[in-house]
C-alpha cells in the first residue's frame, strides 16, 4: 500500500474548484441552476463523509446485527426510491410486488455471490457484504424502476388491446405478454449495454477504486468481472419476479382489468 496517496484536507478542497467553475459558467450563461449545483455538491459531501464514518465504525465493530441493519436500511431505501421515482400512480398490490421482488431477488443473488462466488467468512463481514450489497441493490433498483415505468405505461396505453384480447378469450398472461416482455427487456438492457462498454468506454468505479488503493489490476479485474455477473443475475431475478407477479395486479380474480380510480 506504499503507493497510496492519502488525500489531505486541502487537496480535497482543491477539487471543489470544479464546482466553482461550474457555478461560474452557470452564472455567466444565465442558467438558473446554482441552487441545485450547490445543494447537490453539499449533499454529496455530507452524505459521503457520513458514510465514511459509518463504514469505519462498522469495520471496527464487526457483528452480524450491524450488517443486517445496514442491508435492511439499504433495501428499504431502494424500495422507497423506486416508488417515489415512478411518476405513474402505483396500486398497493403493485407496490408490494416491487418490495417483494426487490428483497427476494437481491438477497438471493447476494447470498449466492458472497457464499458461493467469493466465499467470505464470516458471512457478515462488512468489508465485502456492504459494498457488494450496495452494487447489487443499486443496479436492481435502476432495473426495476425502468420495468415499473414500462409496465404501468404499457398497461395504460395498450389497455384497448388487452381488453380486446380478453374479449377473445385470452388469459391475462397472453393478453399482456407483449407488454411484460417489453418491460423486462427495457429493464435489463442498461445492464447488458454496460457490459459491452466495460473496460473500453469506462473503467467501473469499483475497479478504479481497487486499483487506486494499490491492488493489482488483474485482481481488480477479476472482482469486476464477478460483480458484473452478479449484477446481471440480481437485475434479472428481481425484474423477472417483478414483471411476472406485477402484471397480475392489474387483473382481478374474474380476469377483468381493474379500473384505476
Amino acid at each position, binding site marked *: 500500500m506504499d503507493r497510496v496517496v492519502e488525500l489531505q484536507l486541502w487537496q480535497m478542497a482543491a477539487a471543489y474548484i470544479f464546482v466553482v467553475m461550474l457555478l461560474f459558467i452557470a452564472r455567466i450563461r444565465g442558467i438558473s441552476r446554482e441552487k441545485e449545483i450547490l445543494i447537490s455538491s453539499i449533499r454529496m459531501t455530507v452524505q459521503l463523509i457520513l458514510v465514511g464514518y459509518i463504514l469505519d465504525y462498522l469495520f471496527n465493530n464487526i457483528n452480524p446485527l450491524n450488517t443486517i441493519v445496514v442491508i435492511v436500511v439499504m433495501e428499504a431505501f431502494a424500495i422507497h426510491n423506486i416508488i417515489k421515482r415512478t411518476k405513474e400512480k402505483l396500486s398497493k398490490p403493485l407496490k408490494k410486488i416491487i418490495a417483494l421482488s426487490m428483497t427476494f431477488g437481491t438477497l438471493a443473488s447476494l447470498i449466492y455471490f458472497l457464499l458461493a462466488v467469493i466465499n467470505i467468512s464470516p458471512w457478515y463481514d462488512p468489508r465485502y457484504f456492504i459494498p457488494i450489497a450496495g452494487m447489487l441493490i443499486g443496479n436492481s433498483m435502476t432495473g426495476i424502476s425502468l420495468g415499473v415505468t414500462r409496465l404501468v405505461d404499457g398497461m395504460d396505453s395498450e389497455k*384497448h*388491446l388487452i*381488453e*380486446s*384480447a*380478453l*374479449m*377473445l*378469450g*385470452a*388469459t391475462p398472461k*397472453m*393478453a399482456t405478454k*407483449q407488454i411484460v416482455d417489453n418491460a423486462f427487456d427495457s429493464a435489463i438492457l442498461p445492464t447488458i449495454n454496460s457490459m459491452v462498454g466495460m473496460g473500453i468506454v469506462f473503467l467501473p468505479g469499483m475497479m478504479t477504486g481497487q486499483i487506486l488503493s494499490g491492488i493489482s489490476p488483474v485482481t481488480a479485474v477479476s472482482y469486476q468481472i464477478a460483480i458484473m455477473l452478479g449484477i446481471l443475475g440480481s437485475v434479472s431475478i428481481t425484474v423477472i419476479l417483478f414483471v411476472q407477479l406485477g402484471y397480475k395486479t392489474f387483473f382481478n380474480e*374474474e*380476469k*377483468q*382489468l381493474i379500473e384505476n380510480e
Partner: protein
Amino acid sequence: MFKEVKYKDILNIKHLSIKKNNITCIVGESGSGKTTLLRLLNRLISHDHGEIFYHDQPLSQIDPVKLRRAVTMLPQTPATFSGSIKDNLLIGLEFAERPLASDNELYELLKRVKLNKELDQDAAKLSGGEKQRVALARVVLMNPEVLLLDEPSSALDEDTEHIIIEELVNYTRKRGKTLIMATHSKKVASQFSDQMIEIKDGKIINGKGV
C-alpha cells in the same frame, strides 16, 4: 341463453331473456348502455346485483376465460394487433388455444368480409373499415357459440354494411349460432333481427320479439 334480474349503476334490467340460435339486436342511443350490456355478457365487467345465466348456469360460476371463448365479443373500436393480416386473424385462435387455420381458410374468410387483401400485408396500414372487417373475421374464425358484436359496421359505408351484416346473418343461421349485436341502425335491426331489444337510460323499454 337466459337472463334474469341484473343491476349495475348504468344498467338496470328487471328481466331479459335472449334466445339461443337467434339474432338479437340491441338498439338505443349512445350512452344508453348497449356496450355495458355486451360487456356484462362477455364478463369483461361484473354485475353487482342479481344474476345472469348462460345455459341456465350463473355467469359467476363459469370460468371467465372459458366463457369468453364461447361467448366472444367484438369491441366497437376493433383492436389491431401488431403484425400482418394473417397474424391478426389467427391471434383469436391463439388466445383461445385452439389449432390454427390454413391460409386457404383465411382467404376464404377475407372474401366473405369483402376484403381483397394479401394475408402478409401489414394490418396497421389498413383503413378503419378494413380493420373492422379483419376484427370481425377474427371473431367469426373463432367460431364461438355466441357472437357479441358491438356496432360491427360503424366504420363501414351503407352498402358494405348491408353486405357484411347479411353475410354474418347467413353464417349465424347456417351454423346455428347466437348473434347479439348492438347497433345504432334501426334499419339493420328491423331487417335482420329475430328479437330486438331497445335500451334507454339503462332500462329495457322494448324487449319483444319482432
